[in-house]
C-alpha cells in the first residue's frame, strides 16, 4: 500500500477543491446538455465565437459515429463544430450493449467466463482472470503453482498483444497505415501461441475457477521464451518507425492534456492515470496472482498528454517482456493446473470484489452471491467505460483532427464500454 500513500495527498487535495468535473449537482429533468454544461465548468456552449470580420457564423452539429472508422466500433460522439473547432462533445454509448451483467445472473460461474471474453475482446485473458479471481476469493481456493504461472504468462502476453492492437490502430487513426500491419504481424505470434494453448484466437475461455483449462503443450514455454528477444527487437523497430517522427510528434504532443487531480477525480486508471505522474499499478500496489514475485517497474509520465500515454504503453510492453522473461525462467516443471475446485461452484453467501490491472486500467469484478450456482448480482468495473468519461472535457476547444487523436489515446474497446 506504499504506493497508495503516495497518491493520498493528491486525493485529499482533489477532494478539498473539487476539479471542474466533480462537483455534485443535480439536474431536474435529466437534461443531458445542461449536465454537460455544468460538469465541464461552463466551458461549453460558449456561443458562436466573435469573428473579427463581422461574418455571421453558425455551429455545425456533427454525428461522429456510430459507424465511423475511427471510433473503434460502434461508438458515437455528437460534436458541435465551429469551423473545425469543437465547442461541445457528447458521447453516446450503448450501441454494443449486450447486457452481460444481467445475463450473468442466470448463468453459472463457468458459463460466465466465455461472456467475459467478449467484453474487452482485445484482452480476453485479463477479463477471464478478474472473474475467476473474484470467485476464487469467495471460495478461498488455493491455486496450484503451475496454473498461477500459466495465468501470469498469458496475461502478460495478452497485455503486449493488446497494446500492439492499440499501437497499430492508433497510428492508423492518425493516418499511418504501415504500423498497423507491423503490429499485427507480431501480434499474430502471440495469437498463435494462444491458439496452440487453448484453441482460440480471440475469445479464449481459458481460465477456470481453480486453475486453467489447458496445460501448456510441449514446447510452448520455449516458444514464449524465443518470443521475448524477438519482441524486444521489434519494439526498437516500432520506436524507429514512429516515435521520432516529427509529424507524429506535432500531432500528439501536448494534445489531450490533464493533470493528476483531474485524472483521479474522473477515476481514470491504467496508462491514462499514469501519464500524469501518478504511479498506480495494481500489479505492484495490490499484487494479485503472483506478481509480487517478479521484478518490474511501473513507468509513469509527467505531462499527461497523448504522447506520454503513447510512450507509457510502449514502455509497458517492455516491462511485460521483463516479467515474462522471469516467469518462463521460473516456470515449474510439473504440477496440477486445476486446484481442488468443487465440481459445482456455489460460493458462500457474501460479496467479493477483485480488481486487476488490465491493459486499459483497473478492471474489477464485484459479485454478490446468495449461495447459488448463479451470482445474485455481478458488476464489472470496466476501465474503458470509466476512462471514456473524461472525453467531453478534453475535446472542448480542440480541432476535429484532435478528436481522433484524443479518443484513440484513451484506448477504449467499445465491447467493454458497453458490456
Amino acid at each position, binding site marked *: 500500500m506504499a504506493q497508495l500513500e503516495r497518491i493520498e495527498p493528491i486525493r485529499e487535495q482533489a477532494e478539498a477543491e473539487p476539479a471542474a468535473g466533480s462537483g455534485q449537482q443535480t439536474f431536474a429533468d435529466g437534461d443531458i446538455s445542461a449536465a454537460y454544461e455544468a460538469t465541464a465548468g461552463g466551458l461549453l456552449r460558449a456561443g458562436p465565437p466573435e469573428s473579427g*470580420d463581422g461574418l455571421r*457564423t453558425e455551429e*455545425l452539429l*456533427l454525428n461522429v459515429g456510430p459507424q465511423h*472508422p475511427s471510433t473503434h466500433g460502434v461508438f458515437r460522439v455528437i460534436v458541435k*463544430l465551429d*469551423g*473545425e*473547432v469543437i465547442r461541445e462533445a457528447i458521447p453516446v454509448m450503448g450501441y454494443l450493449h449486450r447486457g452481460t451483467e444481467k445475463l450473468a445472473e442466470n*448463468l453459472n460461474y*463457468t*458459463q*460466465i467466463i*466465455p*461472456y467475459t471474453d467478449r467484453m474487452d475482446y482485445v484482452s480476453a485473458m485479463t477479463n477471464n482472470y478478474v472473474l475467476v479471481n473474484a470467485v476464487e476469493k469467495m*471460495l478461498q481456493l488455493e491455486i496450484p503453482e503451475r496454473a498461477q504461472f500459466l495465468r501470469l504468462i498469458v496475461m502478460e502476453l495478452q497485455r503486449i498483444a493488446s497494446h500492439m492492437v492499440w499501437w497499430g490502430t492508433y497510428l*492508423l*487513426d*492518425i*493516418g*499511418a*497505415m*504501415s504500423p498497423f*500491419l*507491423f503490429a499485427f504481424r507480431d501480434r*499474430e505470434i502471440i495469437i*498463435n501461441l494462444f*491458439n*496452440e494453448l487453448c*484453441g*482460440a484466437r480471440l*475469445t479464449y475461455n481459458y481460465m*477456470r475457477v481453480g486453475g486453467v*483449462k*489447458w496445460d501448456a503443450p510441449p514446447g510452448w514455454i520455449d516458444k514464449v521464451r524465443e518470443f521475448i528477444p524477438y519482441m524486444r527487437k521489434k519494439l526498437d*523497430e516500432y520506436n*524507429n*518507425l*514512429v*516515435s*521520432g*517522427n*516529427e509529424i*507524429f510528434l*506535432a500531432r500528439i504532443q501536448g494534445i489531450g492534456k490533464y493533470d493528476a487531480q483531474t485524472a483521479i477525480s474522473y477515476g481514470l486508471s491504467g496508462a491514462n492515470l499514469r501519464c500524469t505522474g501518478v504511479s498506480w499499478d495494481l500489479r505492484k500496489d495490490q499484487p494479485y496472482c503472483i506478481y509480487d514475485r517478479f521484478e518490474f517497474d511501473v513507468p509513469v509520465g509527467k505531462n499527461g498528454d497523448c504522447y506520454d500515454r503513447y510512450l507509457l504503453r510502449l514502455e509497458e510492453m517492455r516491462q511485460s517482456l521483463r516479467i515474462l522473461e522471469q516467469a518462463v525462467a521460473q516456470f515449474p516443471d510439473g504440477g496440477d*493446473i486445476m486446484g*481442488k*475446485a*468443487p*465440481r*459445482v*461452484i*456455489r*460460493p*458462500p453467501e457474501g460479496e467479493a470484489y477483485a480488481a486487476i490491472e488490465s491493459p486499459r486500467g483497473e478492471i474489477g469484478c464485484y459479485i454478490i452471491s446468495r449461495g447459488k450456482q448463479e451470482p445474485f448480482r455481478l458488476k464489472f468495473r470496466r476501465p474503458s467505460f470509466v476512462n471514456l468519461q473524461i472525453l467531453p472535457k478534453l475535446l472542448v476547444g480542440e*480541432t*476535429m*483532427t484532435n*478528436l481522433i*487523436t484524443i479518443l484513440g489515446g484513451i484506448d477504449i474497446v467499445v465491447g467493454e464500454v458497453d458490456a
Partner: protein
Amino acid sequence: MMHFLEQPFGWSNFFVFLLLGIVMLLIVLGFVTYAIYFERKVIGWMQFRIGPNRTGPLGLLQSVADVTKLLIKEDTIPRKAERQLFILAPVITFIPSFAAIAVLPFASNLFFADLDVGILYYVALSGISTIGIVLGGWASNNKYALLGGMRSAAQMISYEVPLVISVVGIVMMTGTLNLRLIVEGQAGGFWHWNFIPQIIGFVVFVIAGISELNRTPFDLPEAESELVAGYHVEYSGFRFAFFMLAEYVYVFAIASLTTVLFLGGWQSPLPVLDFIPGIILVPAQIFVHRLFLLLAARDAAAHPDRPAHGSRLAGAAAARDRQHFRQRDFNGIGGWGRMKGIMKGLGVTFKAMTAKKVTYAYPDVPLEMPDRFRGIQHFEPDKCIVCNMCAKICPTECITLTGKPNPDPEKKGKVIDTYDINFEICILCDLCTEVCPTEAIVMTNNFELSTYSRDELFKDMKWLTDNNENVRKENNSAAPKGGAKANA
C-alpha cells in the same frame, strides 16, 4: 507538331488533334491504371504483404477490374443532394485535369499546344478542379463532405501560392512562361538543369505539389480517419471514379511538370546520351519522379501523416480560425534537421520491403490449425448417453437434444434421438465438449461455416456426425478434479 499548330485551323489538323487527344487519354488512363496497381504493390511490400495478386497474372488486371466494377455499379444520388451540382462536380474536377496536360511538352516535337503562358495556364486550370471538389462537398448535403470540401479550398489557398512562387525563379532565369522554351534552356547535361540553381524552389515545388494532389500526408480533404472520405463520401460508381481519375491524372501532370520545369524535360542527362530520343527520356523521367512521389509522399510517409500543422495551415487560411493555430505547429516542417525521425521511419519501411511476406494464400492453401483449435463440433451418436450435460452448460443455449428409449430391450437408459446445434449463436466456447462425460460431442479443427442462409446454420445430428474430419484429439482436459465441497 509545330507545323500543325501553325496551320490555320481546319479539318485536317482538327482530326489530327482529336486523334492525338484520344491517344493521350488512353495513355493517361493506362498510366492511372498501372499507377494504382504499382502503388498498391509497393505499399503491400512495405507491409509484408504481396499486394494485388488474384486478378490476372501477378494481379496485373486488378485496377482494370476495379474500374469495371466502378463503371457498372449503381449510381446513387442522395435524395437531398443538390442534383445538378452533384452531377456537375466530378466533371468540373476531371476536365481541367486533363486539359492541363495539353501544355506539357513530351518531346522537342511532341506537344499539344505551344502557349507562351504555359505555366499560368496549368496553374489556372488546376485551380478549377478545386472548385469541383468544393462543389461536390457542398452538393452532397453531407456534413463530412462539406468539411472535406472546405478543407480542400483552404488547402489550395495555402499551397497554391508556394507552388506558384517556387516556379517564379525559373521564370526569371529563363525569361519565359513557355514550358517548351524552359526545357530547351536546360540542354547540355544535367548540370544545366534547373533544379541545381533552383534547389529551394525545387523542394518547395515538390512539397506543394504533393499537397496539390491531396496525397498523404496532405490528404486533409479526404482524411479517412476523421472525415471518413471527405468530399466524395456520397459519390459512388463512375462519379467517384471521375474524382479518382482526376486525382491520378494530376499525379501524372505534376510528375511531368516537375520533369519539365526542373529536371530537363527531354534533354538527356549527359551529352553522350544524346542519341536517346527524348520521347523515351520523358516517360522514364516521369516514371522515376512518380516513384519518388509515391515513395516519399505516400507510403514512406505512410507513417504518421496528415500533419496537424497541415490541417492547421489549411485552417489558418480560413481566416476565422486563425486564433487557434499556434506558431509551434508551423515549425513542424522546415529543415532536414527536423526530418530525422521521418527518415529513420523511412529506413524501417524500406527494410521491410525485403522482409518475409506474411500473407497467407488462404483458400488455395488450407490453414493448419493447432490440435486444440476449437472448430465446429463433431457428434458421435453411439457414445451419447443423453445426460443433457452439454445442453445445460451451453451458455448460449444453442444445443437442443431429445432422447428415446433404448431400442434394445435388454439395455437400460436412453439413446439419442435428435441433436441440433444452432451455429447462429454457438460461440464455440468449448464448454459442451468439456463437460461431456463420454466424449460424444467433440471439437474438430474445421472452421469454415459460411452459408447463404441463416437457416442452414442450424445443424442437425446427421450433419454433426458427418463432420468427422480433423477431430480434436484431446477434449475435456481440465474437468475439475472435484474434492473440496462447495461451501459444504
